[in-house]
């Protein structure tokens, strides 16, 4: 009993230990900007087996690197414009909803945070040449339209990426979340389509307490991103 039990206990905590070790860390400063570092190869190799075949079935695949540990996250809320078949706005909903109960609002906040997970996009450097008949891959990135401060999701070729400013795109996960939630709202409210607009602000840095003059203009700047219109 003791030998078998000990073996099971050791295996269980080995699986949990390598899960925590295999998590990527950082971002750390490198010569090419900040970059996350992968976990050690031995932990990754063991974790590939134990997480897939053991911990996943127990729903224990969280590596305890909690998102809330990263303090400098942008604050996010979003609104959804529900439209009828003629494209007329029926209703605009805001999330997190101030009228919802605390518990529901908390879940809406998690959803909003999930939509705010943008990824930086690196424009290719130098001259790009492809063999005849091949095309450069396209990407969905946030780009402004002339005279409109709202960033919209646009599909552009890698060659068209602006090189004079940082460009980002929503993660695949946030696009998936956005589409699923919009479909749900359309079903619930009987809307023909819906448009999701995300509002986010960068965190306020504590160094602002040391400003004697007027606060920098960008302190409360709001980034508005339109995910576009979706039909269920």
């Amino acid at each position, binding site marked *: 009993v003791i030998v078998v039990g000990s073996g099971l206990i050791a295996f269980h905590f080995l699986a949990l230990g390598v899960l925590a070790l295999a998590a990527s860390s950082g971002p750390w400063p490198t010569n090419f900007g900040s970059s996350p570092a992968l976990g050690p190869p031995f932990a990754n190799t063991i974790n590939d087996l134990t997480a897939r075949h053991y911990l*996943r079935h127990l729903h*224990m695949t969280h590596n305890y690197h*909690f998102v809330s540990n990263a303090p400098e996250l942008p604050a996010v809320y979003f609104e959804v414009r529900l439209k009828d078949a003629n494209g007329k706005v029926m209703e605009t909903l805001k999330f997190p909803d101030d009228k919802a109960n605390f518990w529901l609002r908390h879940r809406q906040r998690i959803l909003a945070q999930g939509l705010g997970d943008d990824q930086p996009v690196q424009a290719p450097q130098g001259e790009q040449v492809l063999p005849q008949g091949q095309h450069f891959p396209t990407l969905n990135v946030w780009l402004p339209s002339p005279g409109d401060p709202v960033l919209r999701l646009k599909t552009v070729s890698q060659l068209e990426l602006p090189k004079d400013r940082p460009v980002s795109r929503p993660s695949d996960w946030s696009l998936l979340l956005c589409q699923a939630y919009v479909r749900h709202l359309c079903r619930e409210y009987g809307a023909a389509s819906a448009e999701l607009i995300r509002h986010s602000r960068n965190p306020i840095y504590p160094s602002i307490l040391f400003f004697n003059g007027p606060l920098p203009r960008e302190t409360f700047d709001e980034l508005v991103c339109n995910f576009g219109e979706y039909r269920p």
Partner: protein
Amino acid sequence: VKPKRSTSVTAAPPVATVASPVKALVAPPAPRLQQGWVHFWFTPVSPVGLHTLRVLAGLLFIGWLLPFAGQVDAMFGLDGWFDQEAYLQASRQVDNLPVPVGWSLLYVAGTNSMLLHLLYWGTLAVFVLFTLGVATRLTSVLTWVMVVSFLANPATRFEADYLLGIVAFYLMIGYVLLGQWSMNLSQAGRLLGTGDTLLWRSGAAAGSESASYAANLALRLLQVHFALIVVTSGLHKLQFGAWWSGVAFWYPMHSPFTTTESDIRALATHRDSYLFVLSLAQYVVLAWQLGFPLFAWRQGWCRLILVAGAVFAWLGSWYIYQMPLFGPVCLIGCLSYVTPGEWQRLQTRVKRVITEALARLRSKPGKERSATAK
């Protein structure tokens, strides 16, 4: 169901006195490390700690699920926030998912709202029975299955939810094995659990529970896992400059959507003292997390550090981060380190206080009556 031994063990006995089958396997004397390992994992203890955690965890499970009563379809249904199509899309990009999508009994309900509601209310009933200690062998398994089933929706899942699954898992191990070795159980007792787990059992019955290997194993598993979580999370914090510079609490406390220029101006007048307190509190949290294994298993004054830390973690996670679940789970994790002896001393003290208070209340009207008569 009559226990084989009517011992009311309050503290772990030394390995040498451990009853069979463990004793036979331990002898002849093993090296110190091996002995320590066996003593740590395979020593029978009174299940009072396990029962207390079950009640607290059961209340937490109910408190976690009940607020979604009006949003069952939206939160958990396949027509909800994360619908069937989203699950299909997610299954195509498994490696890029920030949260894994696992199995869930709720998938059985599909888009059938009535079946989903039935599962929801049935789950709450199971949680209530488990909290009360009814048929714990069965309800503990159902509780774990339903906790992880309700965690499956990746769109609505909060990180502390994972911790609920962990607590439910170890409680399940404890209650599935409880009494299987140390008690003479009927067939029903082996399948459904012992009557000793009932919350309303009589005082005499409560004191006569036999020591259990399962109770110790479940609590030890929870303790080690919880220590791993606390330390890993503490080390993760050290990857961010804000935690080193002592301003990590600043950001959640000053959300850019709610903080105004006048708030900042008001804070700037006493910024030094404000940042001093904030950074000190943050470093205390870091020290508590990184030093956790050093005091968690110790008794005496260390208990104060453990429990006070858990209470502050609850208040802090609610006030600073507005996270309703981290605190209670953290408290349950910390209470798993309390020994059966400490629980029994606490129980005795609470009972005495209640008895004295009741006696005082009973004597008051009598005194008032006699005063009126005079």
